[in-house]
């Protein structure tokens, strides 16, 4: 199966791209991809489900209508986080989609008069804050949807750190975490799976971050530490200070069960 997955963090904004064939088999990949986005955005379970359903409906429309079933093209999904929005785009190169050609379902109609079509678009509009369609000959169909992120939410926000947490690298990695805390995010999960090295400066920066989080009555958790990074915590005795979890799932499950 043709599957392209890339991940980068630029300008303090998390963004990821997924390109999959426009077939029903791709829906599960798309759903997992969007689950990653909603976790990064720190959305609560209900809001995350709304986003998942909206994107599922959008992808289903592309799979069923954009291409000929015999020769499915690609769907390219992108998600991006701004300060207060999760922005998701779906891009396809199939036939032009005209949203005005899809009649809106009459949700008050009786069973006999009720038409079965148009429900997908109806749900997308209900579940997302904005839905915008664009088309041009060169770039195909571009569908952009946004969901407001409620920063006062008690849901933890997840940050994926990467590279070296040393004297020069730590500040840059933690900048977007500090920005989020400044914006009112209280509960923080640092996924350290891609961190290959941590020095004492890195450890000190995490301690300061923890102090900031605690001062705001928040909770800081760490997860997925590589063995050599975990060792820095254990030899300094800081495994007792930080709430360290084996996997992201374990850590997320621990939020809401009180302070570590």
């Amino acid at each position, binding site marked *: 199966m043709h599957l392209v997955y890339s991940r980068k963090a630029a300008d303090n904004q998390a963004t990821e791209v997924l390109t999959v064939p426009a077939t*029903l*088999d791709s*829906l*599960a990949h798309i759903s997992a991809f969007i689950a990653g986005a909603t976790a990064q955005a720190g959305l609560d379970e209900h809001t995350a*489900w709304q986003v998942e*359903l909206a994107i*599922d*409906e959008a992808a*289903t429309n592309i*799979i*069923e209508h954009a291409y000929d079933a015999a020769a499915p093209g690609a769907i390219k999904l992108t998600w991006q986080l701004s300060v207060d929005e999760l922005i998701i785009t779906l891009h396809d190169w199939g036939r032009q989609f005209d949203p005005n050609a899809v009649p809106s*379902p009459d*949700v*008050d*109609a*009786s*069973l*006999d008069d*009720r038409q*079965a*079509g148009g*429900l*997908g678009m*109806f*749900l997308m509009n*209900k*579940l997302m804050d904005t839905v915008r369609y664009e088309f041009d000959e060169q770039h195909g169909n571009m569908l952009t949807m946004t969901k407001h992120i409620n920063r006062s939410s008690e849901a933890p926000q997840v940050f994926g750190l990467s590279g070296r947490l040393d004297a020069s690298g730590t500040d840059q990695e933690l900048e977007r975490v500090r920005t989020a805390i400044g914006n009112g995010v209280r509960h923080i999960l640092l996924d350290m799976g891609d961190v290959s090295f941590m020095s004492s400066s890195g450890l000190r920066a995490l301690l300061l971050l923890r102090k900031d989080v605690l001062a705001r009555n928040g909770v800081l958790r760490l997860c997925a530490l590589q063995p050599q990074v975990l060792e820095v915590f254990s030899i300094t005795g800081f495994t007792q200070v930080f709430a360290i979890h084996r996997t992201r799932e374990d850590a997320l499950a621990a939020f809401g069960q009180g302070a570590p």
Partner: protein
Amino acid sequence: MDIAHKRFNRADLLSLKGRLDAASAPQLKQQIESLFEQGRYRIVLDMSELEYLASPGLRVLIEARKRARDWKITDLEGGDVRIANLPPRIKEVFDLTGFTALFETYPDVTEAIGSF
């Protein structure tokens, strides 16, 4: 999605488990079609273990109920597709799309089967 089938005198019970989306909707459609072909037009869908519902699933439900209700014994008695156990998230999809008013729903399977 897993679909378990159980036959009662009054009706056929289909228990849906997992995700009812574009990928699995044809499976439910086929299962219901096969009941229709056997002359079984009284169907209860147990949704207690349904985790996810998207519009292709809703399309199958509405078409199935229309077909079932075309089958009549008398003016008052006939076929139907009825629902037992709507989990909150599935109920929310029903509420958003106006499906709550389109289906008879029951708090458990026994009541739903007994309603026929």
